[in-house]
């Protein structure tokens, strides 16, 4: 029940109660007067007169009071409605934008002020976390450079025994993996901090998809997978070539890595309304419903990824999601475990580019 309805009901209750008390008072007054002046008149007449008075004067007064109450509560709650609408629009990116204040010093204005202060503190905390991640990923780079360089230098020494060489090579593999993680982390931290500007240019999405299809076929070959490109409509979008290629390769790589032996990868590119729709389907183990909400989370890896020790840095889908949203598109995964897993990317068609 809304505050408005509740207040109006209370208001109505009070009005009716006071009307009732007024009726009793009037009735007693009238009957007292009648008894005093005209002793012959019957009793019932006083009741009639009181009832008539209540109907004639009281009910309109109650109705007016109710309407007035309804209007009054609405009027006093308008700022709350406005506040609710404003708060609804808050997310982690616009914490620094304060809510508009009336500055009339009333309770709601005070509430807005306190809320704005809270927002500022939250914004500060978010920024500090972002900066921390960014600094951490930068700070890791220098020691990583040294470690990689020295391990590589060690590998070049002729005097190395084969066991030592094996160990150094394995360390180098892990360092390479660590580098990929740090690179991915840097990219996402920069994206969070709004430090990456996309280099938008008109480009043919179908050419990128065909290119990606060729790479996917090669990636799939050692696993005995079949890769198909069912539709590939000529579609122009405005986008960042490198980032979109990174996105497509990332999705193709996932479809190959998380597939079953002799499985299938199917791609298609179609126009769907005012969006370009790229889908890539695989028939691997799929993603169960309970972990689906977390697949885009950073460093989240499903059970199959752990069991099969599939190599990956755990940031691929987070990066894919960032690339898509930076292009004002959407990415969605639907999975029927052990049957088909479909990744759908929708990117807005750039009409200006289409016409050109």
């Amino acid at each position, binding site marked *: 029940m809304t505050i408005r309805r509740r207040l109006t009901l209370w208001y109505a209750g009070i009005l009716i109660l006071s009307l009732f008390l007024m009726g009793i008072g009037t009735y007693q007054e009238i009957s007292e007067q009648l008894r005093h002046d005209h002793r012959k008149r019957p009793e019932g007449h006083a009741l009639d007169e009181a009832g008539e008075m209540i109907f004639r004067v009281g009910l309109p007064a109650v109705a007016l009071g109710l309407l007035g109450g309804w209007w009054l509560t609405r009027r006093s709650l308008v700022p709350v409605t406005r506040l609710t609408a404003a708060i609804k629009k808050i997310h982690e990116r616009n914490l620094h934008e304060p809510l508009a204040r009336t500055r009339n010093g009333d309770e709601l204005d005070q509430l807005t002020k306190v809320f704005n202060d809270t927002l500022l503190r939250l914004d500060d905390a978010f920024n500090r976390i972002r900066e921390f991640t960014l600094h951490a990923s*930068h700070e890791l*780079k*220098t020691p*990583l*450079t*040294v*470690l*990689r*360089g*020295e391990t*590589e*230098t060690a*590998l*070049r020494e002729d005097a190395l025994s084969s066991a030592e060489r094996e160990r150094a*090579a394995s360390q*180098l*593999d892990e*360092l*390479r993996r660590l*580098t*990929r993680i*740090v*690179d*991915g982390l*840097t*990219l996402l931290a*920069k994206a969070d901090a709004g*430090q*990456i*500007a996309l*280099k938008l240019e008109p480009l043919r999405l179908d050419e990128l998809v065909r290119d990606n299809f*060729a*790479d996917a076929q*090669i*990636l799939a*070959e*050692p696993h005995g997978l079949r890769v198909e490109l069912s539709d590939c409509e000529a579609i122009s979008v405005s986008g960042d070539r*490198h980032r979109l*290629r*990174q996105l497509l*390769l*990332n999705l193709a*790589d996932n479809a190959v890595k998380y597939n079953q032996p002799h499985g299938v990868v199917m791609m298609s590119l179609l126009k769907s309304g005012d969006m370009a729709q790229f889908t890539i389907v695989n028939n691997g183990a799929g993603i169960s419903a309970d972990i689906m909400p977390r697949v885009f989370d950073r460093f989240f890896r499903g059970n199959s990824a752990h069991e099969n020790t599939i190599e*990956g*840095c755990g940031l*691929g889908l987070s990066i894919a999601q960032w690339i898509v949203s930076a292009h004002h598109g959407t990415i969605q995964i639907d999975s029927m475990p052990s049957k088909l897993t479909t990744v759908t990317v929708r990117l807005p068609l750039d009409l200006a580019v289409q016409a050109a």
Partner: protein
Amino acid sequence: MRVLVIEDEKKTASFVRKALQAESFAVDVVANGEDALLAAGGTPFDAIVLDIMLPGRDGLSVLRQLRERKNSTPVLLLSARGEVNERVEGLNAGADDYLPKPFELAELVARVRALTRRGSENKSIALRVADLTLDTVTHKARRGGADIELTVREYRLLEFFMRSAGRLCGRMMILEKVWDYDFDPGTNLVDVYVRRLREKIDANFEPKLLHTVRGSGYVLKEAP
């Protein structure tokens, strides 16, 4: 061949120096921008390896100053910032190549070597390594009298290997030149393509030409 390395991080400077010296480059190392400008003003170098993040005057400013002084020595920029747009910014400032940290040493050496050879690159139309030939106009590859069918990507990969025959080609360098990727895709794309290419140009022939350098990359050459 003489290379100037401008890097303030001592350990990094040390293994870069060692690696370049192992490839018989003469190496001078300085740790800040002012010394770098002094050194570059006095000695002619064949290439410069320049870290962007330096104490005091930063790498980009050193680079601009060099170009202003009409010094056209090829410059390889190193950067730990990993800005997506930094490569473009660096190339606009007059750099010849860009390598984000952490890099592979072999990658760095390969790039420095490529810089010092710039201009003397093999520009011929018909490329040849042992009995393997590649016509860059018709995109036809032949070995041992047999035609070899290549896809577009395989052709570009082979052309890249043949133009840098005898030199180590790092994975990042291959991804950049053959795929035009400015990111590490984290896949074994290069290795899978090389395996396929090997099946076509090496499997049925002797001697093997395409060699793997463990942990570093590939090299196309006649002798192992």
